[in-house]
């Protein structure tokens, strides 16, 4: 085990996978010479050359379109979209092409593309550098959606994503890139896609989060436990496929759920969890499933701290749900 930043863990996964499999290629804006705007791809071009680490024009549709073509040809491209807020010019390539190729070709052409991209607020980036659009991709049939919250998971999930046969939207919590450090297993480390992690076991209430919000959830859970509410904390890690069994097992035990995300509330992932639980496990519920989410407004620049759920807001929801 070594202590690493989340960013360092991602960089390590890219280095190891490129070394292991020469079909893995990286492409994107400034990923080569500069090593990426956040330096996630640092050192790759020096080590693997310009043929496998490609600086592209500022053209997201082109980046994803080229990656799809490479994947159909047998490569394993890992394109980077500099900020997920810029992914919309490539939305057509992603939902109309990437998500559908395997299905449309009757399984003849899997499209193993991993689209890596930083998401989320907390860096005073305003509304073009702070969005959390995971629900767009979770809603789209044919895509996997992964969001790590720790350095170890960042390495393990990115490795699994690159080795998978299906397209993955890999969302990286950019505000944790350098601020979060943790133990990362040395050598090969794989975290399976579709398995949540029970971060803390508890009996009174299930708190569900993912990505950058896990830091707020950890903080809120700790405070709630001090108040006598025995919180079970779950990190979903992958939103599609998501680990319904882990959620169900926890609901059956606690009967109370709070789900946290920074994306807007309407049609966010919290809506799906609430709907699923209301559909499949309502008899176990002691209280309505409570959503703590971003607001249904564009991401604000000055009101960023108010917009994003924080530990006190999560704690309020925990208290109210526990007392329902």
């Amino acid at each position: 085990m070594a202590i690493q930043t989340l960013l360092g863990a991602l960089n390590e996964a890219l280095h190891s996978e490129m070394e292991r499999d020469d079909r893995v290629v990286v492409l994107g804006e400034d990923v080569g010479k500069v090593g990426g705007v956040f330096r996630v791809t640092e050192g790759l071009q020096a080590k693997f050359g310009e043929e496998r680490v490609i600086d592209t024009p500022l053209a997201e549709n082109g980046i994803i379109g080229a990656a799809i073509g490479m994947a159909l040809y047998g490569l394993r491209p890992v394109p980077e979209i500099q900020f997920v807020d810029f992914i919309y010019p490539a939305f057509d390539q992603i939902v109309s092409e990437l998500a559908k190729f395997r299905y449309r070709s009757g399984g003849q052409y899997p499209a193993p593309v991993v689209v890596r991209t930083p998401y989320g607020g907390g860096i005073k980036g305003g509304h073009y550098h702070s969005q959390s659009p995971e629900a767009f991709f979770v809603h789209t049939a044919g895509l996997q959606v992964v969001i790590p919250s720790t350095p170890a998971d960042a390495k393990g999930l990115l490795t699994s994503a690159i080795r998978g046969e299906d397209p993955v939207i890999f969302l990286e919590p950019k505000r944790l890139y350098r601020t979060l450090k943790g133990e990362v297993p040395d050598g090969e480390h794989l975290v399976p896609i579709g398995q949540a992690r029970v971060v803390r076991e508890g009996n009174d209430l299930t708190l569900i989060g993912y990505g950058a919000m896990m830091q707020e959830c950890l903080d809120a859970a700790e405070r709630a436990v001090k108040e006598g509410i025995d919180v079970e904390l779950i990190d979903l890690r992958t939103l599609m496929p998501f680990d319904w069994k882990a959620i169900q097992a926890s609901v059956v035990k606690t009967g109370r759920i709070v789900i946290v995300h920074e994306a807007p509330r309407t049609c966010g992932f919290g809506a799906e969890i609430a709907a699923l639980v209301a559909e499949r496990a309502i008899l176990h519920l002691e209280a309505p499933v409570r959503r703590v989410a971003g607001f249904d407004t564009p991401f604000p620049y000055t009101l960023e701290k108010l917009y994003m759920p924080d530990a006190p807001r999560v704690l309020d929801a925990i208290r109210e749900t526990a007392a329902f």
Partner: protein
Amino acid sequence: MSMREITYRDALNEALHEEMARDPSVLVLGEEVALYEGAYKVTRGLLARFGERRVKDTPIAEEVIAGSAIGAAMGGLRPVAEMMTWNFAILAFDQIINHAAKIRYMFGGRVKLPLVIRGPQGGGKQLAAQHSQSVETWLAHCPGLKVVCPSSPADAKGLLVTAIRDDDPVMFLEHEILYNAKGNVPEGEIAVPFGQAAIVHQGSDVTIITYSLMTLKALKAAEELERDGIHAEVIDLRTLVPLDMEAVLASVRKTNRALVVQEGWPVCGMASEIAARIQEDAFDDLDAPVRRLTGKPVPMPYNRILEAQAVPQVPDIVAEVRRLAA
């Protein structure tokens, strides 16, 4: 007000004619909307009556259609942009999500964006994975957009009039299957307000919440269930943003059972949002799980039989309601 029966297509066409006659700042643009009068003939007669300056054929470039409409709206006009289908509007999603939805907010409310983007969506015509999608969930998840899904000719006309007069960007989603559907539409000016659902079938046993084409299927299901003595209340949401949850909750408090039906993909869909809100705000009123009946999470199949299986059909709705009522 006297009524006559016209198609959904003609109702939309009437709304465009009337609003363009009423307000010279209204203009129409899109692929083949002028000379050819629209791929689905919704813009019939507009070029002849209002001329090339107000009815514009554009290149096949959805991003440009949306982008220039946004610019026109910022400049004080009231553009109505047609997307040949919403499937192609996905190419304009950056303009819609990052610009149309955010401009009013970015300028602290000092710039209005009276823009309508309209076009057909949905499946049922064997047009396969890239021409049969339902996009409303993506749009509803993007704050700053209003989302409208009419199911009848009267609502198509009345909601389009309201959309054109609205000062915010309105995403107007017509269903491809409904263009030839006929219904009673009042003569003369009608405006259907946003945020008001319609109870299209009264009932006391189960509430079916739906919109667009699925409203017609839910109505057929309700009639069939009526024969078995099961009284389903059918709510047509009409607009998804703003969403009339008061109407939904009032009905659920009466029936204590809810089924949400939508054509599109399930995960994080509109049905998920509605189910989530019902369990949040009517938890103690529920006598059964909130059920969702949605399209399957697959790209839309081309094969006719598979396509029919990929979206909810009348017998599926009937079966779900029976299960819920029991």
